[in-house]
Each structure stands twice: as C-alpha cells, then as structure tokens.
C-alpha cells in the first residue's frame, strides 16, 4: 500500500516544476496582465496539488481546504481583473 502511494509524490514534484516555471513568468513578465496570468496558473496548480496531497495521505480535510482555496482564488482573480480594467465597482 505504501509503495503504491509513492507515485503521488513524483506527481507533486512535477507540479512543483510547473509552479517554478510560472514563478519565472511572474518575476520577468513585461506587463502586469502577464503576472496575473502566472498567478492564476499557480493557483490552479496549487489546488490540484492539495487534492493529490490528500490522496497521498488519505486525509479528506486537505481536499476541503482545496475547495475553499479554489473559490477564494477565483474571487481574488476577479478583483485584480476589475482593478486592471479601471472600472468602478
């Protein structure tokens, strides 16, 4: 059972590689929407990573954290987009 769950840690290392590539885009982005795109990608990958972490340790509470993180990151992305657009709230 333990050997089977080791595959999820390899997946988590690959997701960490994706997050590092997105962080490079956030740092060196020429414009502000580039950085917002990088942060949105990081949010989605972190949600998937939380779900896979919960599957690796067989803990359901990590997946609940992932659901709440998904909804809060959606609200934050909408607020940043509205701020860039320059409209009134």
């Amino acid at each position, binding site marked *: 059972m333990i050997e089977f769950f080791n595959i999820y840690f390899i997946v988590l290392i690959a997701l960490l590689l994706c997050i590092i*590539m997105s962080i490079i885009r956030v740092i060196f982005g020429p414009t502000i929407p580039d950085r917002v795109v990088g942060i949105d*990608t990081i949010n989605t*990958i972190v*949600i*998937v990573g939380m779900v896979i972490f919960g599957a690796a340790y*067989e803990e359901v509470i990590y997946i609940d954290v*992932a659901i709440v993180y998904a909804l809060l990151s959606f609200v934050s992305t*909408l607020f*940043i987009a509205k701020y860039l657009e*320059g409209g009134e709230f």
Partner: protein
Amino acid sequence: MIFDIIIYIFLGIGVFFNILAGVGLLRFPDVYTRLHAGTKCTTFGSIFLIGSVILLGLKMWWDGNINGSVLSIHSIFALIAILLTNPVGAHAIARAAHRSGVMPARAVVDDLKNKPVKKSTKKKTTTKISKNEEVGGQ
C-alpha cells in the same frame, strides 16, 4: 488491477498537460497566447489528475474502506469548483488586458478599439428612456 493501470494513465496525462502549461507560459510571446496556454492546459490536466483521485476513492470504496467514498465525493466537488471558476477568471483577465491597452504581438490594427464601451448602466437606461419619449412624441 485495471483500476491501477487507469489511475497511472490518468496521472501521466495530467502531469504531461500541466508541464505543457508551464512551458507555454515561458515560451509564448504574448499575453493572450500565454493565457491560452496557462488556462486551458491547466484545466485539462487538472480534470485528469482529480479524475485519478476519484478513481482511487472508488477503488478504496470497492475494497471495503468507507473513507474512499468521502474522498471521491469531495474530489468531485473540487473538480466542479475548478471547472466553474477557471474559464471565468481567464475571460476576466483577457478582458482587462484588452481594456488596459495591451496589444497582441506583431499586431498593427485593433478592430475593437472603435467599438463603443458601455461604461455604466445609468447612461444605457437614460438613453432608452429618451428614445421611448421620442417615439411617443412622434
């Protein structure tokens, strides 16, 4: 046994598309193409990664573990949250990038520049009322 093979295949597809999303974020020349890479590839990869977790929960439930059904149902809710929120966020970012004046790479003409933008709803309602009055006056 078949469950294990399907779980491995789903994990491979999901990791491949997530890495494609990272490479696309690094290599594409533009905001809109980067958004195309970073949102759609990530959504497609997360469908398969969370689908593998759902299959793992179903396998645990089939073996007699009660926690497997809870794991599977909560993973389905996380997948629904990603599927609902990710395209809407991408659309909002693209709209904000276009309205803040970011042009695509090697683009010369912007056809959407002269299109009238509805700034607020008050102007729209007032124009509608005035049009109705003109029609009634005639």
